[in-house]
C-alpha cells in the first residue's frame, strides 16, 4: 500500500486520538480527583456540540459561536455537578453509574426535544476548508490538521495548569487528601464544581470539533464515551499523562485497524473471509487491546501517582 495513504491514516488516527484525549482528560480528572464515575460525560460532549450549533446560528460568527457554546457547556457542567453529582461523591461506583446513566437518558431526550432526532450539520467556516500540502505531493484536510493542533495545544495547556500553577496544585492536593486541603481553608466544593465545569467544556470542545467530521445527533455521546473509557483504562485511571498516551494509542489503532485490517487479512485469508472478518475485527480491536493491557497490567499503563 502506498506510503502517503498510510501517513494520511496515521494523521487521521492522531486526529481521532486528540479528540479522545479532550474527552478523556475531563473524565479522568473527575475520576482521579472526585472519585466519580461519570457516564454522563458523553452527554456533555453532545450538549457542547448542540449548544455550539445553536450559538453559531444565533451569532452568525463561527468563532464567537464556538466560544459562546463552550462557555454555555461549562455552565451546564457546573449546574449538573451542583444539582445531581455532588451528592454522589460519597456513594459507591454502582450508584454513580446508575445515576449518571439516568442523566444520559435525560440529555439525549432533551436534545431530541429541542433539536429533533435527525442529524444536524455544523458547517465549518470557509477559512477552515481546503487542504494543506504534506511532503511528496500528498495533501491533508486543513480542518483535521487544525483539530490536531488545537488538541495538542489544549494538552500542553492542561499539563502546564496542572503541574505549574497554584490552581493545579490545589487540584492535585484535593486529589490526594480532600479533608486536609479543606481544613487548610480551601473551598474544595467550589474547586470541584469548577474542575467539573472545565472537564465539561473540554468534552464540549471535542463535540464541537467532531461536529463537521461526524454527525451532531442525540446519542452521539455514548459512542465516543465507551471508547474514552477504553482510553482511560488503558492509560491508567486518574492520570492525565496516561489519558494522553492512551488516547493516541486508541485513536491510531482504531483508525489503522479500520483502514488496513481488511486488506491485510485479505493477503492471508480468502477475500470473502477477509470481507466478513475484517470489519468485525476492526471494531473489536480496541476492546481486545484493552483486555490485553488489563490482563498484563491491571492498573493501566501509567497508574496515577495521586494515591489510593
Amino acid at each position: 500500500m502506498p506510503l502517503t495513504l498510510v501517513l494520511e491514516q496515521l494523521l487521521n488516527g492522531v486526529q481521532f486520538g486528540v479528540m479522545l484525549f479532550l474527552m478523556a482528560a475531563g473524565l479522568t480528572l473527575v475520576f482521579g480527583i472526585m472519585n466519580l464515575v461519570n457516564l454522563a460525560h458523553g452527554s456533555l460532549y453532545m450538549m457542547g456540540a448542540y449548544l455550539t450549533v445553536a450559538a453559531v446560528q444565533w451569532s452568525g460568527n463561527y468563532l464567537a459561536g464556538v466560544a459562546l457554546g463552550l462557555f454555555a457547556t461549562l455552565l451546564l457542567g457546573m449546574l449538573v455537578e451542583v444539582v445531581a453529582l455532588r451528592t454522589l461523591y460519597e456513594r459507591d461506583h454502582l450508584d454513580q453509574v446508575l445515576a449518571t446513566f439516568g442523566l444520559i437518558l435525560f440529555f439525549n431526550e432533551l436534545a431530541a426535544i429541542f433539536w429533533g432526532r435527525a442529524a444536524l450539520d455544523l458547517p465549518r467556516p470557509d477559512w477552515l476548508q481546503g487542504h494543506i500540502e504534506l511532503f511528496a505531493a500528498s495533501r491533508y484536510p486543513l480542518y483535521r490538521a487544525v483539530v490536531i493542533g488545537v488538541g495538542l495545544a489544549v494538552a500542553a495547556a492542561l499539563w502546564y495548569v496542572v503541574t505549574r500553577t497554584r490552581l493545579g496544585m490545589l487540584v492535585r492536593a484535593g486529589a490526594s487528601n480532600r479533608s486536609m486541603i479543606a481544613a487548610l481553608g480551601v473551598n474544595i466544593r467550589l474547586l470541584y464544581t469548577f474542575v467539573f465545569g472545565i472537564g465539561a467544556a473540554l468534552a464540549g470542545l471535542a463535540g464541537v470539533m467532531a461536529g463537521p467530521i461526524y454527525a451532531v445527533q442525540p446519542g452521539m455521546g455514548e459512542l465516543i464515551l465507551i471508547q474514552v473509557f477504553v482510553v482511560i483504562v488503558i492509560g491508567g485511571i486518574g492520570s492525565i499523562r496516561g489519558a494522553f498516551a492512551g488516547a493516541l494509542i486508541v485513536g491510531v489503532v482504531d483508525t489503522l485497524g479500520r483502514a488496513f485490517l481488511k486488506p491485510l487479512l485479505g493477503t492471508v485469508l480468502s477475500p470473502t473471509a477477509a470481507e466478513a472478518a475484517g470489519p468485525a475485527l476492526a471494531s473489536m480491536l480496541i476492546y481486545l487491546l484493552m483486555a490485553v493491557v488489563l490482563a498484563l497490567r491491571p492498573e493501566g499503563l501509567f497508574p496515577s501517582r495521586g494515591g489510593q
Partner: protein
Amino acid sequence: MTRARIAFWTVLVTLLVLLPPAAAALQQPFYLDLVRKAMIFAIAAASLNLILGYGGLVSFGHAAYLGIGGYAVGVLAFYGTTSGWLQWGVAIGASALVALAIGAVSIRTSGIYFIMITLAFTQMLYYLGISIEEYGGDDGMRIKTRSDFSGLIDLGDPVAFYYLALVLMLACLFLVHRIANSRFGMVLRAAKSNEPRSRGIGYSPYAYRLVAFVIAGAMCGLAGAMFANHTAYITPEFMHWTRSGEIMFMVILGGIASTAGPLLGALVLLVVETLLAGWTEHWQAILGPLLVLSVLFFRRGLAGMIPGSRDG
C-alpha cells in the same frame, strides 16, 4: 421464612397465576405480553443479582448473555434446528462458556476497572453482532419458528409461554436464593463484605467469584433464549450497553441482594416505561431523572418495603 414473607409470596404468585384469565376476561392481551417480558427480565436481573448483589461484582455487561442466548436460538433456527431442548441448551452452554472467558480476565481487576472491562467485552460482542451480515447485521433477524419442545408446550400460545416463563422465573429466583444462602454463597458474600478477612480465613475469592459469574451468565443465557422467543426476533440491540444498564437498574430498584427484588424491579421498571411511553414520545426525559432520584433517595429498593424484609 416469616409469616409476612409467606403472605407476600402467596399474594405475588397468586396474582401472577391469575393474570392470564384476568387479561383474557378484560380483553387486554397486552398486559400478558408485558408481564411475560418482565418475568423474562426478572430472570436476567436475578442472575445479575447473584454476582452484583451477593458477590459485589458490578458487571456492566450483563446484556452480553441475553444476546448470546438470543443468538443461539436465532442462529440455530436459521439453520433449521428448531428443537427447543437443543436451542436452549446451547444458549445456556454458550453463555456459560463466554462468561467463563470474560470472567477469567475481568475478575482479576476490581472496582472501576471491572465495570469498564465488562462493558468493553459486551461492546465487542455487540459489534460482532452488528458486523455479521449473514445473521442480519445491524437490522437483526426474524425467527420464523419458535423453539419446539417435542410438542410438550407450544410457545406460540401466549398463555402457555406465560406460564412457562412464570415457572422458570420462580425456579431461577429460588435457585439464586438457595445459592446465596449456601456455603458457597456465604463465601461469596464474605468476600464482598471484607475481602482481606475472607482471605485471612483461607478462602481465595477468585474461584468462587468466577463460578458465580459463570452461573449468572448461564442463567442470563436462558433469559436470552426466552426473550428471543418472546420477540420472535433477534438484533444486536439485545446486547446494547443501555440494556445492561437497564438490567442493573432493575436489580437496584428492586432491592439489591434480595430474593424478590429482581422481579419487583423488572415489573416496576417495565410498567413505568410502558406508561410513560404511552403518555409521551419523550418518556426517557422523565425516566432519566426518576432513575437519578431513585438512586439518590430510594436506597433499599422495593424489596425493602416488603413486610419482614429486615430479618430476611
